[in-house]
């Protein structure tokens, strides 16, 4: 790691040379793209996730388990992030994706770890239902 001069920072990691490395900046999201199925067939959460790329734009859609039919999830914002995993020294892309249903907002991050797509959802309810905001994590395998 080289410390770059004259840059503001709040931790040494902010000065990691990898952050201005063109190889990191131009890393593709290939490992994330595709259709992913929940490893838990009985899930009452997200059944599947599809990550696509058109040009530089990434999209994340999902199918929530519904009472009768799946419920469509479409991320309002998707941001690619350089994934700086400390111990493994991996260099890859993670995604931050936000979903807004009006009555509920889900702030999520997605990453691939050893071929498994992991999503962590921080769900916040905005209605007056009394439900608790909650965090959950689900795992997906590549379908195609």
């Amino acid at each position, binding site marked *: 790691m080289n410390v770059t001069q004259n840059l503001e920072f709040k931790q040494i990691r902010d000065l990691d040379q990898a952050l*201005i490395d063109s190889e990191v900046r131009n890393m593709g999201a290939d490992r994330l793209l595709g259709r992913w199925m929940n490893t838990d067939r009985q899930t009452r959460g997200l059944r599947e996730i599809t990550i696509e790329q058109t040009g530089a734009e990434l999209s994340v859609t999902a199918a929530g388990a519904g009472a009768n039919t799946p419920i469509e999830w479409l991320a309002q914002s998707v941001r690619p992030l350089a994934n*700086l995993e400390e111990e493994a020294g991996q260099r890859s892309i993670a995604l931050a994706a936000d979903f807004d249903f009006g009555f509920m907002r889900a702030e999520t991050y997605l990453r691939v770890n050893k071929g498994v797509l992991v999503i962590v959802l921080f769900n*916040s309810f905005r209605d007056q239902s009394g439900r608790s905001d909650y965090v959950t994590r689900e795992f997906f395998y590549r379908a195609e």
Partner: protein
Amino acid sequence: MEFAQIVDQVELEAISRRPMDLSGLPGVWINSNPHTNGIARMVMSEADGKLFLQVYAIGPEGLIDWGVAQVQVFGSTPTSVTGAGFSCRFDFGFADSFLQGMIMKGLLVLAEVRTFKDQSNRADYFVREYFALEHQRY
């Protein structure tokens, strides 16, 4: 009751009106990686039923105090009243840091999303690290 996944459709009787139990979150959380170049230590404290997080990160000449941010607390299910995670945001001007933590088997798994707002051309980044609660029992 609206829901986007059936797990969120819960019986009204299952919803507790009790406030969230925050007792599992306050304390001093220490990074399990002694060689981290990111957040070294976090101090979570409770005041007036709210939680606040103070962060100390590794700098070139010692720890850098990020200051304090109020956190949003999350349970583990829509009916849970036990704090199992949190999120908060620090705005440094040149960058934002969005922290999302969840408790797993006593460890705090912290995800940090760093977004640069300056013209440095640095890539926004994501990192996950593990923190243990300092208990001072041994």
